[in-house]
């Protein structure tokens, strides 16, 4: 997304919340995602653009955590956070960094593009031929799901669409990890050995470099680890979250017969009209959202 698009989405969110009756303060957190790809084949221009963005997302979490800490001190127990798509990488990691310190009253994950196994080891696996360990489900440093419950949010909700187009494409991206290529130097996982103690390494120039936790956590998660579960926003049940099936909130699919599985539905709350998405924004403020 371009910076302009992010601003448009934030403006839309604020206006739609206002129409729902929300009269509090509103803020948007931006981080440097990649953008301006003229076509899908431009993946060829930067073969890792999605994962580069994900890497930036992980790395931006500290900034969000700091922001939320500051806000919570100003408005104790009155800060609410919702994140869209890859924003749930930033939000989830910021809340993980919060540990036992409450950063927000409620976190609503909307169409989250992050592994559901990071929260719930029992989330449904999908049929992939994963070539890496599922470090989201069992993080090597803790042997627990990576996010291990979000204790810095009083409550969590998950707005999901099991047919989400982008989160289906997300699976393809997961399949193609570790990021390997002929036209760029890539990331690899192999059986642990003295040469590669963690199994993860990357090649740069004529050398290979071992990667390990915790020093290279974000690099490993962004470029190497394959999720064996569906994305958080496409999983029907995730322990620790109040679930909201978005298909129950949406009007009939205008691309009928496609079961909310086309591209625009991934960002429907921003792209469709306020009337069409009235229930979505109502739910965000309502009983399955911020309550």
């Amino acid at each position, binding site marked *: 997304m371009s910076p302009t698009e992010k601003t448009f989405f934030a403006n839309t969110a604020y206006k739609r919340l206002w129409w729902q009756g929300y009269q509090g303060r509103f803020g948007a957190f931006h981080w440097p995602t990649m953008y301006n*790809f*003229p*076509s*899908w*084949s*431009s*993946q*060829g*221009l930067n*073969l*890792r653009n*999605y994962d580069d963005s994900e890497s930036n997302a992980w790395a931006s979490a500290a900034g969000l955590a700091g922001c939320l800490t500051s806000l919570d001190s100003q408005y104790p127990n009155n800060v609410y956070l919702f994140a869209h798509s890859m924003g749930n990488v930033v939000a989830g990691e910021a809340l993980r960094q919060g540990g036992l310190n409450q950063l927000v009253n*409620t976190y609503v994950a909307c169409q989250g593009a992050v592994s559901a196994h990071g929260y719930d080891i029992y989330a449904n696996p999908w049929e992939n*031929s994963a*070539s890496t360990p599922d470090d989201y489900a069992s993080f090597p440093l803790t042997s627990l799901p990576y996010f291990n*419950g979000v204790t810095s949010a*009083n*409550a*969590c*909700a998950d707005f999901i669409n099991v047919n989400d*187009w982008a989160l289906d*494409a997300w699976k*393809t991206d997961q*399949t*193609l990890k570790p*990021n*390997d*290529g*002929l*036209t*760029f*130097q*890539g990331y*690899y996982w192999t059986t642990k050995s003295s040469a590669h103690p963690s199994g993860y390494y990357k*090649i740069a120039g004529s050398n*290979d470099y071992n990667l390990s936790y915790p020093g290279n956590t974000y690099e490993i998660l962004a470029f190497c680890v394959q999720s064996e579960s569906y994305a958080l926003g496409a999983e029907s*049940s995730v322990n*620790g*979250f*109040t*679930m909201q099936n978005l*298909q*129950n909130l949406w*009007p*009939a*699919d205008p*691309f*009928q*017969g*496609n*079961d909310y*599985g*086309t*591209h*625009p539905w991934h960002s429907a709350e921003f792209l469709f009209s306020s009337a069409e998405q009235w229930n979505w924004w*109502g739910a965000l403020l*309502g*009983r*399955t959202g911020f*309550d």
Partner: protein
Amino acid sequence: MKNNYYKAAAILIALAGIDYTCFFCNAQTSTNLSPPSGFATRSDYINSFTNEDDALGAYRKGLIDRGEAMLAHFRITNLKSQDFYGKVIDQYGMPVTNADVTGNLVLENGWDTPEKFSQYKTYTDEVGLFQFTGLHGAKLGVVPNKLGYELGGHGEEYVKSVAETSSPTDRVTFIMWKLRGPEPMVHVQCDSRVPYNGASVSFDLASGKKSADGDLRITLSRYPLNIRRGRDKYDWNVKIEAVKGGLILQNDRYPNWAPEKGYQSSFEFSMSSNHVPWSGELDKEFYFYKANKQYGRLSVGLSTDSSRPDTGITIQTWLNPSGSQNLEFDPRMQIR
């Protein structure tokens, strides 16, 4: 370390650079890489993959680039046969003839670009059958339409074929509702709150609002009272009562006709903390009749898991004040 082929390719790219201009047109990414033996171009090679496993295997072996693997993924997705065999019937099982059927063929257009849609049309024959054949793409959305019939908007009208893909002898069935004709109705949606300590709250079915002498009574009990929302599992019980009236729990495809009989005064729903799967949400649909013999439809959505002193409830009602059992609703005829 990666194999030597990778190293050679990397050196080649370092020397020659990447041609940024020609990725799209031929669905190839790495024009500076040599095609494998037996192929004139890398496009030919990428286009030779007929399933995703082959493309993934080639990627894993270092034979194709990551971008090429993605291109292969989208290309293979768009090559899927979308032959579709369907039939359309009404709620009585009778064929719906001469219905207009639209097929929305979807072609994937990449990560950052919306899909391309192509629309195809056909009609049901004298026994309600139709088909689309010879189409290839990522998906095919099929929608029948006929004046005087209703089609559900959330998949409730759709009965899958037995096999994964339909065939002339194993068709997808669309069930449409043959309309009697909508009547003026009252429709309300109300978001409210109820306590979870066992105290009853009454609502008025016609307005959806709380009312001390309302004809819908909700009683929610939760144990323990104090929970961590979304994290704790707990016991809960909800009683839904129609005061001086009745309710029928329903899950009809088209809840457009209220039964004349079979109503009971209340329903109770419980969830034990050790139930698998456990949920703190209740979503139920009912037919109801009021003491004055008016029929209607009721939807109750209740979250039991609030950490506030009360918890959220959404009530929707559709009420036909004429006394008819007909619940076909047209927003243009809504009584306000």
